[in-house]
């Protein structure tokens, strides 16, 4: 896709995420909205045959579902049934769903799993990459750093983590709960290549990924500075919106901001 198409795709993905949450009265909308550009770039520009992507911040799955549906992994009607009785798609992704590589939702699991897949690729001399998207609050979990230490120790340069660094977690501002700053330095201390980028700048994200592909000695992490709730003004950076469901009025206002067409 060209830049304009990717921007349009990002808006459409946001609209679908909003629709899903509004209809189901369930789902983590704000956490999904901050992932959109990262995932759009990943699926359009980066992932090749044999590569894998693990969404470690499983609660932020709405954008991923929309993108997987667009790619034909499953019918788009499943987006309409999100969280409804007997639905294929629920609040956290399951490995049994086409296109989903791991069952996540319990935080801190994705990076160790991604590390294991990367290790298997290394054993088999496969050149494939494994990408893993984490939340910043998720990085409170010790298991994230256990995996980081192992990956750094074993120089798993085909492992590329991305942290959706939106500075909020479910109870509020991350720096008031566990302040991760200086965040990039923490990764570098464990022998990672750390790159910081605006998490909504498509060109910046593409450049960052390509820099990671050039790395031959270390795993890489892209620290994507994002806005939780990006795209809807009253949700952006608002800690209250971690698990809020839009009212009818809010839904329509959000739609207006995202696109012209309403349900």
């Amino acid at each position, binding site marked *: 896709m060209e830049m304009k198409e990717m921007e349009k795709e990002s808006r459409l993905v946001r609209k679908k995420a909003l629709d899903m949450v509004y209809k189901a009265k369930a789902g983590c909308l704000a956490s999904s909205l901050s992932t959109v550009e990262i995932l759009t770039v990943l699926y359009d520009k980066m992932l090749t045959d044999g590569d894998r992507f693990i969404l470690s911040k499983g609660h932020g799955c709405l954008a991923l579902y929309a993108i997987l549906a667009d790619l034909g992994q499953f019918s788009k009607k499943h987006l309409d049934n999100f969280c409804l009785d007997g639905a294929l798609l629920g609040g956290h992704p399951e*490995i049994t769903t086409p296109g989903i*590589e*791991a*069952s996540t*939702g*319990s935080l*801190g*699991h994705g*990076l*160790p*799993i*991604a*590390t*294991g*897949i*990367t*290790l*298997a*690729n290394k*054993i*088999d001399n496969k050149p494939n990459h494994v990408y893993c998207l984490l939340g910043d609050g998720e990085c409170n979990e*010790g*298991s994230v750093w*256990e*995996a980081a*230490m*192992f990956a750094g120790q074993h120089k798993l340069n085909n492992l590329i983590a991305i942290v959706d660094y939106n500075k909020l977690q479910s109870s509020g501002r991350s720096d008031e709960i566990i302040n991760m700053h200086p965040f990039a330095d923490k990764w570098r201390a464990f022998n990672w290549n750390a790159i910081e980028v605006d998490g909504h700048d498509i060109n910046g994200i593409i450049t960052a990924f390509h820099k990671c592909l050039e790395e031959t000695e270390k795993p890489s992490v892209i620290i994507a500075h994002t806005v939780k709730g990006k795209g809807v003004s009253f949700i952006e950076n608002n800690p209250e919106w971690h698990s809020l469901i839009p009212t009818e009025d809010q839904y329509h206002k959000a739609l207006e901001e995202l696109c012209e067409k309403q349900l």
Partner: protein
Amino acid sequence: MRKAAIKAIYELAAKEERVILLLGDVGSWLHRRFKADFPDRFYNVGIAEANVVGISAGLALAGKLPYIYGISTFMTGRCFDQIRVDLCLQNLPVKIIGVSCGTVYAPFGPTHHSIEDIATMRSLPNMTIFSPCDAIETEKIIRDTRHHDGPVYVRLPFEEKQGVHEECRFVEGVPELIKDGIDAVLLATGRLVYSSLLAAKILGEDNIDCAVINIHTVKPINEKALIDMVDEMPIFTVEDHNIIGGLGSAVSEILCENGFSGRFKRIGIADKFSSIYGSLDYLDEMNGLSPAKIAETVVKCIAK
């Protein structure tokens, strides 16, 4: 039994390239032959149990057959969520070999005892649990795990006091009659199968003819096979594990649901930490798990 496990894992790796061995910084010296001969398939992940399991899940997703070797209590307790979600929910072929189960780490104290592992692992869908009673059985069980498509937990002490089998008759899930008897039956698991045989000998001197059955597969137990083997005689379960949630609970579930109305008692750790140090024989005596104490419990129960 630990040596048998190490030998079996090595032989599996020699035949099957997909086998990967992961340690939680335990047993590196014991697995030195594996490390020397298969260096690209040996990983000491460090003292990081959650990561060991997570990495194993990733390896399995990529088509490998991971074997984890670690201390029972840590490799089941510290990473319970990883076992639950990464291995059981995703039903991946990862094998956890947990050594020093029960109170085997007697001199080290209760932080190193594993008296909850059967309870926790049993509660997980898709998990299979083996508890072999001697080296021969250990080797057979671990060899067979190669064909398991889902997660497996093998619970081991260090070494057997004495072998129970001359020849292995292991059939997964099916309780094994080691000694027949008509007055009572001891359903035992792991190292206490041998202790139960000694207890049965003591009981024999009191004219109590006690059967001993080896429960090597704690989950799933073949219910029909178990019910067919016991009748209304007094039944005792014997385990180096908390009486809550372990073998005793598993057997009682089956007996209750099949209308058993005879006498039943769980012999095991009485829901307390063994905050004492000493030899394993000493702890067994204190915990009522020595052959003499097992026999004493049977006599008291039958006499009521």
